[in-house]
């Protein structure tokens, strides 16, 4: 019966597939690559477009305050007449920059601990596991608040705080992978040939964990930008003069009762879209490089 079940499972993998942005007829690899490129394009557009928003473009226009979404202001205007679309773009761009920083830093922490733990083994590995438990023992929000306070708030506080709370899952993945490779035959041979741990890590382990690393880093990003916005919203992240989404949303709270729904709706919804977009890119890359799904159809 085993073989039938296997066939069934393979089919299941096929069906669980991803989003179809492109017409059928292309191979799954082509489609995945194309959608990854497309999504990355949107991502870069927001990043660059948002960076180009200058203070001049966001000047106060008191003749046009609280304008609801419409032709000249797609996302409406705020209480001093600034265009919410431009503010949102600028905010998203800032979020993306912080998100990238946090993902990369988390990645570095994860690589170092995830490889060091199992390679050195024993006490070091136990320490890494304990550190993971330690970070997970207190809710992220509280940890980031504490770290942000310690850093005196601002960009630095947010980046350090988010980084130090987001390395755990990737570290676990890498650690498991490294443990598996360590048990593999070729690694053992290398060990017997007298190669040191560093050599083994560099030659055998790094190339194998690289795919997981790429996917893991991309998938940290959505969490990072959501946490950044959330903590900024509470008042511990970016200062009020920055064009951050969290700042915009905190401001919007004052105008909720007056019915200016667009102040909160569009910036938040845009943030969710960016986060989902990156998540999709990460999943697509995962499909591409994971041997289990790479050649299966969608």
């Amino acid at each position, binding site marked *: *019966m085993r073989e039938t079940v296997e*066939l069934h499972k393979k*089919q299941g993998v096929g069906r669980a597939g991803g989003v179809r942005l492109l017409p059928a007829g292309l191979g799954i690899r082509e489609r995945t690559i194309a959608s990854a490129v497309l999504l990355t394009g949107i991502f870069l557009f927001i990043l660059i477009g948002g960076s180009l928003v200058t203070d001049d473009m966001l000047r106060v226009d008191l003749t046009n305050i609280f304008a609801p979404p419409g032709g000249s202001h797609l996302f409406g205007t705020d209480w001093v007449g600034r265009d919410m679309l431009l503010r949102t773009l600028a905010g998203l761009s800032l979020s993306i920059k912080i998100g990238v920083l946090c993902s990369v830093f988390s990645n570095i922490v994860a690589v170092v601990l995830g490889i060091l733990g199992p390679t050195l083994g024993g006490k070091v590995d136990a320490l890494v596991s304990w550190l993971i438990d330690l970070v997970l023992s207190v809710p992220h929000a509280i940890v980031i608040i504490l770290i942000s306070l310690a850093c005196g708030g601002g960009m630095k506080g947010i980046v350090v705080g988010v980084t130090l709370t987001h390395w755990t899952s990737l570290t676990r993945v890498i650690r498991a992978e490294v443990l598996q490779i360590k048990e593999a035959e070729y690694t053992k041979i290398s060990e017997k040939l007298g190669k040191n741990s560093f050599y083994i890590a560099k030659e055998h382990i790094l190339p194998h964990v690289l795919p997981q690393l790429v996917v893991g880093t991309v998938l940290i990003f959505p969490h990072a930008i959501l946490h950044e916005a959330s903590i900024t919203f509470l008042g511990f992240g970016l200062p009020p003069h920055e064009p951050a989404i969290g700042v915009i949303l905190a401001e919007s709270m004052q105008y909720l009762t007056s019915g200016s729904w667009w102040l909160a709706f569009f910036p938040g919804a845009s943030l969710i879209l960016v986060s989902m977009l990156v998540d999709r890119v990460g999943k697509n890359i995962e499909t591409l490089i994971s041997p289990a799904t790479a050649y299966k159809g969608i």
Partner: protein
Amino acid sequence: MKDEEYLLKVENLGVSFSQYTQGLKKTRLQVITDLCVELRAGEILAVVGSSGSGKSLLAHAVLGILPENAEETGSIFFEGRKLSQRDKEALRGKEIALIPQSVNFLDPLQKVGDQILSGTGGTSGPGQKRRRRTEQAEALLARYGLEPGVARYFPHQLSGGMARKVLLQTALAADCRAIIADEPTPGLDPDSLAEVLRDFRAAAAEGRGILMITHDINAALQIADRIAIFYAGTTFEIAASSDFAGDGAALRHPYTRALLQALPDRGFTPIPGSQPLPGELPEGCLFCGRCPQQTEECAGRRPMFRDLRGGKVRCIHAT
């Protein structure tokens, strides 16, 4: 023999799977081709084939539990009636039972007694009814030499031999007419094996038909009345167990004879080559490429399954 005299009859069964290969190309993977087998009441018929060749799909097709992406052709008859998917759903667990390969086919979190009786109409109900059912399960277990307490065990608490018996109970509880046992022998010590085979014989003696799917030709020879030889998704021959006696001169198909000669106590001569994989089947006879009697005609088209000397064979050269 007329159709009605067979308990279960499988005629030209074909099972294929749709699969996606690279890109969006959909391919059909033919795993079973033109399989024919008949089971009579009171007999044990063994379907023998090598591991992983898709034999289990025969059982799944009869019970209507093939996965969704499978396509089934051919006909299956039960007591002379051609079965639709609905018929199969109505019959399974009541008239036709399956004995699966291992204890992994039992729900790890459900008590053994409940699973034995599950096919006979649910296990929940008011206390009175439930108690009666428990007694029923215990009685069944006792009949095959297991303590009544086993009904309250969880599957992981069973030993290999016990698990086998429990799986057999699931089939006997419902008083099924036909039982399909999928690989019932591997992993058993000789004592447990003998006991399981004895239980099978006893069940057959009560008028049931038992279809035993196995890769173990020795076990098949020990217990079965007739043996069907399964190769690359089809049946090459159906022969009485007695035909396998001696050097197998009574056998009909070259593969069956080769199989016999490959046994440790009959010469131990292996057959060169290997079975073709689904998707790489030859145009003509499926034994092409490995057959010592192969002629040009064999490669042209697939031979019919025909009656010969009280058995059946799928070979144009057989006499």
